[in-house]
């Protein structure tokens, strides 16, 4: 068995990047995720795997460096937190429009504005519903442990390249700052120039006589062309919805009530489920691992056995809208959340459950 090392979620992102064969990281410091770049700089992967690590002048530059790297078929990524991601919104829309694969990590903090540096989950809408302009989506993965942080970098790149789409790891200050045991996977080599040529025929590898020039652009002055592109994008999103939903469940088999929570909140809710079970309530938990694609069918399938659903978030209530859409009024959906950087305790979640369902 591989060795398990105690590390922060943010450090796990860095190690995950190096070991999954990432080619480049471009970032800008911001709490609570600065350890990602700090760890990469400490590890100096350019001396081992050849991975490029660069501190950019702004988040705007970071995301555009990601764009520049991604055009050449390289595995490139950035990380930031909430307001930094807002600055990247234009770039994310460009990446989606130009159908470029990349990984973007958001270690969320409380907002709006400069907000707080403490954990938050109030960027759900931004990540899942767009954030930037135009009809686009990203694959959104929600890690709930340092191990997930490590694993999701590689998974994010795999999905991003499979569908030519940006993948976001939507984490938060709890998962980023918390230390846990992480099992490091095998070191995967970076792809060679030949492998990129073969696997990414669209990439800018230099125009040779055996092919036409490759152009990476999101521009179509002719609206008919743009609409065709958009239809193709929507078909791609549909395929992702059908094939890539990921979620976990805890004690749902006989559950009459369901907690729905993602990321760090799913951990808190797991403890609250235990508490509710001890008190004799049949409560289970569904944790969406992918926020797009959302496990809407999987939640809907549980409806016949349920008397109620409680969605728990570190926000004023964002994902709860998708839970309500999924069950379409067939079962009451309540919401409990703290925000502005407050992390609710398992006790609070349990008490909210008792109160909202008149137990």
């Amino acid at each position, binding site marked *: 068995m591989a060795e398990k090392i105690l590390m922060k979620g943010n450090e796990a992102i860095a190690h995950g990047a190096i070991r999954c064969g990432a*080619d*480049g990281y*471009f970032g800008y410091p911001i709490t609570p995720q600065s350890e990602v770049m700090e760890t990469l700089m400490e590890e100096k992967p350019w001396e081992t795997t050849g991975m*490029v690590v*660069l501190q*950019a*002048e*702004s988040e*705007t*530059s*970071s995301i*555009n*460096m*990601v*764009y*520049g*790297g991604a*055009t*050449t078929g*390289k595995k*490139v990524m950035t990380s930031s937190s909430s307001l930094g991601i807002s600055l990247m919104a*234009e*770039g994310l829309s*460009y990446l989606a429009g*130009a159908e470029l694969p990349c990984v973007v990590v958001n270690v969320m903090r409380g907002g709006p504005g400069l907000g707080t540096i403490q954990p938050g989950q109030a960027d759900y809408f931004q990540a899942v519903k767009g954030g930037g302009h135009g009809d686009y989506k990203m694959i959104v993965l929600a890690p709930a442990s340092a191990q997930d942080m490590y694993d999701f970098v590689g998974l994010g790149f795999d999905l991003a390249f499979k569908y030519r789409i940006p993948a976001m790891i939507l984490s938060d200050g709890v998962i980023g700052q918390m230390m846990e045991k992480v099992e490091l996977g095998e070191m995967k080599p970076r792809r060679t120039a030949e492998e990129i040529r073969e696997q990414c025929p669209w990439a*800018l*590898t*230099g*125009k*040779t*006589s055996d092919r036409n*020039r*490759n*152009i*990476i*652009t*999101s*521009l179509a002055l002719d609206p008919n062309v743009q609409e065709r592109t958009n239809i193709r994008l929507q078909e791609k999103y549909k395929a992702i919805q059908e094939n890539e939903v990921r979620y976990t469940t805890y004690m749902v088999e006989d559950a009459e009530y369901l907690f729905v929570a993602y990321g760090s909140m799913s951990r808190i809710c797991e403890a609250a489920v235990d508490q509710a079970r001890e008190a004799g309530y049949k409560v289970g938990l569904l944790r969406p691992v992918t926020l797009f694609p959302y496990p809407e069918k999987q939640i809907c399938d549980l409806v016949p056995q349920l008397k109620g659903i409680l969605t728990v978030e570190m926000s004023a209530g964002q994902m709860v809208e998708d839970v309500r859409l999924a069950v379409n009024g067939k079962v009451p959906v309540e919401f409990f959340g703290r925000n502005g950087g407050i992390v609710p305790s398992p006790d609070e979640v349990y008490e909210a459950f008792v109160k909202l369902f008149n137990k």
Partner: protein
Amino acid sequence: MDVNDIIRPENMVYAKTPILTDTVMHYCPGCPHGTVHKVIAEVIEEMGIQDKTIGISPVGCAVLAYNYIDIDWEQAAHGRAPALATATKRLNPDKYVFTYQGDGDLASIGTAEVMHACNRGENIVVIFINNAIYGMTGGQMAPTTLLGQKTATTPYGRDAKLNGYPLKITELIAQLEGTCYVTRQSAHNPAAVRKLKKAVRKAFENSMMDKGTSFVEVVSTCNSGWKLSPVQANKWMEENMFPFYQLGDLKDR
């Protein structure tokens, strides 16, 4: 004598470089973009680096530059081309990477990106077309618009009190340790074009010598935006632009 008797290989005095595509350019008649594109294409052909060159087009009139030069291209968000170029070059050090940017793109919205790319000494080439106006959006004020110059957003002429001063960004770039070659050229007559081509070639060669960033400004006209004929525009440029944006090398090391 029939015309076909003249069109013979032995009589050929000029051929368009095959690196320039046959796509009809969308630029206005009289616009220097086409000339600068041709110069870049010729340099790529002469250096034999078609398969090793990646171009980055801006937002502005030159957004469609990728339709005209037969190399791999990426299209950047407004002002961000130097950030793209940074990553493209660092991840592909065997490639010649250049950005092609206008004055709004480079000297207004993209000031941070170009300054920092140049300051880091990225081994890239920046081609900067300065025509002192926003052409694509219909002739609004650019950061390089001269004092008194009329544009759609300075209908009474640029007033320093209202709009600040024309930005000599090339002079700023020349101050940065990361740049190795900073020059200001034009493309308004054959002699100028020959000088420009030399400068572009030098810039491309620098990018494989680990010397830092090469920056080539091309003082240009926008006869449509300036509302002048091509000939009048060239004359206006010589009389008004050249005294303020003086041609020549600012730095060469």
